[in-house]
């Protein structure tokens, strides 16, 4: 029983990491229907930023986190401006390939500049473990869990309740009509990228701190997983991204705990496919059947 609850904690904290990354994916996808392959690499940039400012400039945790969010936001906006904006009226698959190209560029560019060695992330917050009836959870786990829940609620509020959020939704359903009511599309899309990418930047610092190891390719695997999580939850949906992240985290943990660790990704993909067959637009996705 104790083991069981411990596994739940393990699953939740892994899930919260996927959720954190999936939120950014979903934001960007929601507005321009682009799988932003480079999202995982912005997370990597955030982690490296945190690494340097803490080690070299001796930032504290909060300022490292906030500055990494700024760096994430800035890189998201810059990438959108140079790589995606020129392709806004091109086929979506073109933009996807560009996103893959940007991802390659960030991964290999960083490897080139900083070598592909793994680095240990400075442990700026001392890890403290809390024990509750034999089940243990660390302060950093709680921090990540709380952050991703709060961010999810915050994002949902921004999208549903603010003027900018409405503008984002309007741009995503009909960009021309949005312009006709006075929405600056470029601005709105930049804002979305800034928001989504700042989440990746924050995730970089949090996850760097949690696992204590960063490298230029660190964005690849969780990037794909987080994307799968976003799809599972219904890509474009904020609560979907979180739920998808938690489901995958718990599922992976469960599969490993019953001794099928060699198949953990296979099981995740299998469940993904099964869920998509039942809910073709993911758990929270609106299945907008075309009206004939």
């Amino acid at each position, binding site marked *: 029983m104790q083991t069981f609850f411990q596994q739940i904690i393990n699953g939740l904290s892994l899930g919260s990491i996927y959720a954190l990354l999936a939120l950014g994916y979903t934001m960007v996808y929601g507005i321009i229907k682009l799988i932003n392959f480079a999202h995982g690499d912005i997370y990597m940039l955030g982690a490296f930023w945190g690494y340097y400012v803490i080690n070299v400039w001796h930032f504290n945790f909060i300022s490292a986190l906030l500055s990494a969010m700024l760096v994430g936001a800035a890189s998201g906006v810059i990438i959108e401006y140079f790589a995606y904006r020129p392709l806004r009226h091109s086929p979506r698959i073109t933009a996807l390939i560009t996103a893959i190209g940007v991802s390659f560029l960030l991964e290999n560019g960083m490897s080139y500049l900083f070598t592909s060695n793994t680095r240990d992330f400075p442990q700026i917050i001392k890890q403290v473990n809390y024990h509750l009836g034999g089940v243990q959870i660390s302060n950093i786990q709680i921090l990540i869990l709380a952050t991703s829940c709060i961010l999810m609620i915050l994002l949902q509020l921004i999208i549903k309740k603010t*003027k900018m959020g409405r503008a984002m*939704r309007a741009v995503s*359903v009909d960009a*021309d*009509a949005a312009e*006709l009511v006075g929405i600056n599309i470029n601005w709105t899309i930049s804002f979305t990228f800034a928001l989504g990418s700042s989440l990746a930047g924050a995730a970089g610092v949090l996850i760097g701190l949690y696992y204590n190891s960063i490298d230029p390719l660190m964005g690849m695997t969780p990037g794909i997983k987080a994307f799968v999580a976003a799809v599972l939850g219904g890509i474009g949906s904020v609560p979907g991204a979180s739920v998808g992240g938690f489901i995958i985290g718990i599922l992976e943990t469960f599969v490993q705990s019953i001794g099928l660790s060699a198949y953990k990704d296979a099981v995740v993909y299998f469940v993904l496919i099964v869920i998509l067959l039942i809910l073709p637009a993911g758990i929270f996705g609106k299945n*907008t059947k075309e009206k004939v």
Partner: protein
Amino acid sequence: MLLTVDDLFVNYGVINAVKGVSFNINEGEIVSLIGANGAGKSTILKTISGLLRPKSGKITYEDQEIQSKSAPKVVADGISQVPEGRHIFAGLTVMENLQMGSFLVKDRAKIKQNFDEVFERFPILKQRKNQDAATLSGGEQQMLAMGRALMANPKLILLDEPSMGLAPIFINEIFDIIKEINKQGTTVLLIEQNAKKALSIADRGYVLATGKIQMTGTGDELLANKDVQKAYLGG
């Protein structure tokens, strides 16, 4: 002169959709633009509202050249377009669609007042205000599109085929509403396939064919014109 279009050329890649069109609209008028499919009517509207950039020509609005302004700036200047095919925001409620209409209006009281006016004019929208706009019927969507445009307090409203695909009973209603909007001080540029209806409520009209103005006159003059009758009024 509220709006002057001067020797306008617009291209889609190599296709010349509009070839040297000039016309003008006075404050308080209803001006109608009629012409066959593909004549370039929608293209002209989109160019005025800033969605398209002209190849050459001038568009002057309240003594300012606006042909190189972006759509949001044009909206801010007081020109609203009701696009062809309605283009309401699916997935947003009726209420949210209308809120989007006054995206650029800062004054909360003013927004509130706009809501009241729109709901008064389109009572059906008030009934449906929390419904997803995508589930409205065609006529209701058209009303929503007009309501949304009015939420921006436009001086000039551009209507692109507001009667398309509507049942006869809705068509009458829509034209009544256009007249009313105009009476309350909004200048109207109206594009229509339904030339008879359009010309009958218009102060002046222009006939457009393959990207050029062919004819102009008051609404009644055009209605009485033989060529116009033959080509656009069905005999």
